[in-house]
């Protein structure tokens, strides 16, 4: 177990999240992908903190709080959209031209 390994794992998680973000078209699934990205960031913070020291963990605490707030807002928006469209597929939610 080295820093390189941990960072590769974090990078992998992040890129999987990016892939989901780009390809999934259900709002909830997009939220899940976002969670993966945030989690990857936290893992990277913690890995650096363990192997190199420094202020990684305290950053994770703040990142967690931010994530939680984002999830709350995100889900509320998803529900709102669902009420409007009876569906959460983003492609159908496309009144805007362009």
């Amino acid at each position, binding site marked *: 177990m080295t820093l390189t390994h941990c960072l590769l794992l974090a990078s992998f998680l992040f890129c999987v999240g990016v892939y989901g973000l780009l390809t999934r078209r259900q709002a909830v699934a997009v939220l899940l992908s976002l969670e993966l990205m*945030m989690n990857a960031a936290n893992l990277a913070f913690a890995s650096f903190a363990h192997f190199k020291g420094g202020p990684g963990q305290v950053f994770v605490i703040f990142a967690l709080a931010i994530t939680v707030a984002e999830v709350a807002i995100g889900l509320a928006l998803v529900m709102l959209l669902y009420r409007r469209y009876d569906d959460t597929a983003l492609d159908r939610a496309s009144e805007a031209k362009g």
Partner: protein
Amino acid sequence: MSAWLHLFTLELAVVAIALLVLLWDAFAPAAGRAVGWTTALLLGGVFAASFFVDGRGTVPHGVFVRDEWVVFHERLFLAAGILGVLGSIDWLATRTPKRQAEYYALLLFSLAGMMLLAGARDWILLVTCFELMSMPLYVLCAYGKQDGPASEPKLAAEAGLKLFITGAASSGLTLFGLALVVGMTGTTHVGGIGANPAPLTIVGMLFVLAGFGFKVGAVPFHMWVPDTYQGAPTPFVAFLSVAPKAAGLATLAIVLLGGWSADSSVWLPVLLVLAGASMVVGNLFALPQTDARRLLGFSGVAQIGYALLALGAMSRGGLAMTLFFVATYVFTNLGVFFVLHAAAEEGGGHSLARIAGLSRRSPWLGGALLVFLLSLAGIPFVAGFWAKLFVFMEAWNAGLVGLVVLGVALAVIGLYYYLTVARSTYMADGDRTTPVPTGFALRAAILVCLIFVVGLGLWPRPLVEAADRAAAGIVSGR
């Protein structure tokens, strides 16, 4: 109390107003315009106080610095906030008379986030302030959800979700990038990056920049802009289109010129490419638009390109002129959206045909719109001219001749679509002839914007000097 609390007087005041408004509504729900006017007046008081509160200093550990830079931004954001509140009063009072307080409270939270952001010199504070600024915006974007004409609430919810997803994704990018940067440098201080040529630091910083790029709506992170502008309630779009962008640019300036200037050879090409691409894409995509708000969305992308160009000059003068540009853009764009809102309010929809014959119906509104459009286009004797001019000059001085020529050429293309809007206003005949009904608050907001745009056009010197003082806080020397 600690010795540094007075540095946050204005921010605390803004938060206090937000809480006051919330409590007022909780215990004595007030319909009508009382809440809005109170908020606006109290914010006005805070704005006035900013000229008397003379707190300059640094918080222990250097996480927050209040200097001329912060003072300038505080005033800019407060002005945008006051105008944003003023512009919303009539709309809220008629559309959602029972649900007004939350709107103002959220707006004020966002405002507090921006004001703190300008002084943050620590990654953790920077990120949390950024989120405090963004989070309420997602909600406000969907605020008009249950009201208005048939197609509007759907658009508002969709706009909110689009803004949220791009915003959250950019936060994810920023955080991951910061993980790498903070890990490599071992400090959360923004200035701690120094000259650190390790690939991981550079990749991390590029991630961070991409995250901020989303927020300011620069190409290629601009795709949310037109959709959101079209969908969200117009008085809010007015605020959204200026204040967060100004805050995002301020952050970019802090990070790039304040923290990472040692490795400018890495990010400068990226920044310049983004600036050029924003100018090109924004101006060209605005051409075929028929919805005024989408048109202004792309125009906003183009304007960000000009601002980034001045930032790319990497000098005190360039930064000062970025600030000047942003400040004029704030007043101009607020004004444009307010006029559009006034013109479209009675029947919904913002296609260019809606404002046909506006100058016949309400000559003052039409004239104001013309002035704002000319300012966006950069025509002499309105503020936007000096803004563009200064930006191009500083970029020229920094040797970015090619981009300046490109920018000048594109500015002319920009003129075409701004004139198209002016043509609808002045030459086309609309189906109505009665004056546009506008509330007092909205008229006041438009008037204030107008005074600033024309006043700065005739006498730009005070703002130039203020911007220069502010820029000295980030970039020392000439």
